């Protein structure tokens, strides 16, 4: 076991922590466009650039679509790239998200999760990245500013792994995390640089019959982003799915390697459990709400109630085994969704957890709570109500309302 390095404690908000992690990760190109609540990431990074603290080409593109495009193009030229966005900006990138994962470019992107219009709302919920869950990007949702810092560094390693080669989104709740100050333990520059390493490129067969590193290089010309007709397209998509599968193991590996250096581990990297071993009632959530729920769980446990929490850290690829193992003995489960899937009979996380548990013999009760949309705050009291609802379900052996809206004025 390697010794944990000495770390500096810096007061940083979520955005600043992200920018700091990027600063240390030897990123070659940052192409970004500002949008609340991610603006501090871009602004902070501009300061680093203006003061010569980073060796990074910083491109202030004229839109998010061009920001992701530029990152993708830079990435396939051989550069390590990063960008950040939220809400409408991420939505504007939609087309390019699919193209980026299709081109197997390991771009890392921080999303300061924010609600989508209309109406316009600048506050935090997870609709923006949840709406992109089919785009082929790895998605991780962090609970704290500290985790935002740690996850960005890990993201470069995960994305660039030759078994993965997929872009990564690190989601941090808008304003709740992006603008909240925490004491962040930061690793020294050289340790981070060593951890992220130099980007390795896979070898591909080119049309000249050569085996060359996958990048745009006049030395070894290759054609990227062709048109693939029905006779080939399907195979490329299957390759991406295989990469997602491989990512499950890689994320765990990177999490434990990082723990050796920093002393911090987030569950096994895919999911994190809290008081779940003997839990009868449990809540599943993504992101910072987990922190609030933990205080509620502590309170309930004091009262003798067997309450627990499962935080899904990696949403894509979906950690099916971890979710199943964590919940298969829990009797009543409430899945929290900070986004909506209109007309879908519940939120996305609810759907996915339910489908993972479908084959479990015990067949627990699984219900859904939509909450926090547009930055609506959720109190510990409201979260406690969720556990009380779960207990009532167990007492009555009946689910009156499978889908509820927490904090909505009915």
């Amino acid at each position, binding site marked *: 076991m390697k010794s944990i390095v000495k770390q500096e404690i810096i007061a940083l908000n979520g955005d600043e922590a992200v920018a700091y992690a990027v600063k240390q990760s030897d990123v*070659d*190109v940052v*192409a970004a466009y500002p949008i609340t609540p991610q603006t501090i990431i871009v602004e902070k990074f501009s300061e680093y650039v203006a003061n010569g603290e980073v*060796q*990074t*080409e910083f*491109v*202030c*593109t*004229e*839109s998010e*679509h*061009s920001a992701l*495009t*530029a*990152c*993708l*193009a*830079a*990435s*396939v*030229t*051989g*550069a390590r*790239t990063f960008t950040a966005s939220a809400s409408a900006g991420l939505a504007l990138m939609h*087309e*390019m998200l699919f*193209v980026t994962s299709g*081109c197997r470019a390991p771009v890392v992107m921080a999303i300061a999760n924010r609600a989508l219009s209309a109406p316009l709302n600048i506050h935090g919920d997870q609709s923006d990245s949840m709406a992109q869950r089919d785009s082929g990007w790895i998605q991780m949702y962090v609970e704290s500013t500290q985790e935002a810092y740690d996850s960005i560094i890990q993201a470069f390693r995960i994305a660039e792994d030759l078994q993965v080669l997929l872009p990564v989104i690190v989601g941090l709740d808008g304003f709740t995390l992006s603008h909240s100050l925490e004491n962040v333990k930061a690793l020294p520059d050289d340790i981070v640089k060593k951890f992220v390493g130099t980007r390795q490129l896979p070898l591909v067969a080119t*049309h000249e019959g050569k085996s060359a590193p996958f990048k*745009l*290089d*006049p*030395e*070894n*010309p*290759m*054609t*990227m*982003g*062709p*048109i*693939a*007709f029905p006779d*080939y397209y399907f195979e490329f998509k299957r390759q991406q799915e295989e990469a997602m599968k491989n990512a499950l193991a890689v994320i765990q590996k990177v999490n434990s390697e990082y723990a050796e250096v920093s002393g911090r581990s987030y569950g096994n990297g895919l999911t994190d459990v809290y008081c779940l071993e003997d839990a009868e009632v449990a809540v599943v959530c993504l992101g910072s709400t987990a922190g609030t729920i933990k205080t509620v769980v502590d309170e309930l446990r004091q009262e003798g109630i067997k309450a627990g929490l499962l935080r899904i850290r990696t949403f894509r690829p979906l950690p099916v085994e971890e979710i199943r193992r964590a919940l298969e003995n829990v009797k009543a489960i409430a899945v929290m969704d900070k986004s909506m899937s209109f007309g879908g009979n519940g939120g996305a996380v609810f759907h996915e957890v339910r489908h993972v548990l479908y084959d479990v013999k015990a067949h627990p009760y699984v219900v859904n709570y939509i909450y926090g949309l547009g930055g609506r705050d959720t109190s510990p009291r409201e979260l406690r109500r969720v556990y009380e609802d779960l207990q009532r379900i167990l007492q009555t052996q009946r689910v009156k309302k499978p889908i509820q809206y927490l904090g909505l004025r009915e």
Partner: protein
Amino acid sequence: MTEEWSARALTTKDIAEKPDLFLSGHRACAGCAPATVMRLIMKATRGPTIVTQATGCMEVVSSIYPYTSWATPWLHTAFENAAANASGIEAALKIMKKKGRIKQEHVDVIALAGDGGTYDIGIQALSGAVERGHDFLFVLYDNEAYMNTGIQRSGGTPLGAATSTSPAGTVMPGKLERKKPIAEIMVAHEMPYVATASPYYWRDLLTKVRKGLEVNGPAFLHVLAPCPRGWRSDPAKSIEYSKLAVESCVFPLWESVNGQCQLSVPSKLIALAPQKKKPVTDYLQGQGRFRHLFTPQNKRLLEEIQRITDERWQRLLKKCQTA
């Protein structure tokens, strides 16, 4: 090692001897002038080059997996972002060179797009990339409609042309809007180099591509590229139409070097001998997309086209006089 062109005028042999970097076996239509333009542009490269392209005819016909017609590194991502691709590639090359990861002394970046990927959906990325001053050459190969998807009108479609979304019907005689003056829009960006070119005038075109590459900063080249399919013209005449367009002053040849505008030789000859200027009808007739203009009820529109052509020509002459 970048290849220098000698001071003497280029000969066809100079060009014919250079290997093609846009390879045969692409699936463009017979008589496709944009394909000729692609070949000529690639002949004008001077050393290590990376090409990036917007979705469109030339992109599709040259990259049907598993086949490629590109002997240079080549990237396509989407329709509206050729210039954003170029920005990313250029930024990567710049920083990687600083960090000692690029062995070449210099790599040219060329962005290629049709009128679809330039006038309309592509204009944002183009304008942004130029404003940021990236070192790249953007070449617009203009066949005057969204040809690849079936001849739909674009901002580059000229007044009166029939397209599938501006058909010549009983009530509306083709496109009612003028061709957007894209090259002038680019000049207004105060960029180092803007030029127009036509494949018939191959020496002018090649020289301008080279000039664009030599500029340290953004350069824009607007090349007229007749499409026999969309223009409903004889495939054998695609290059001839690119000549008639210049001779009738519908598509004059000029360049703007740091804002200083000057006519190119083929158009200068007409400026000096106005009797050589051909009427627009010489250019329009034979093109099926303008056939409806030669009916009595559309006579006014034909006259309008001549009037606008003359107006733009006069405006150009005035601009170039100060050079």
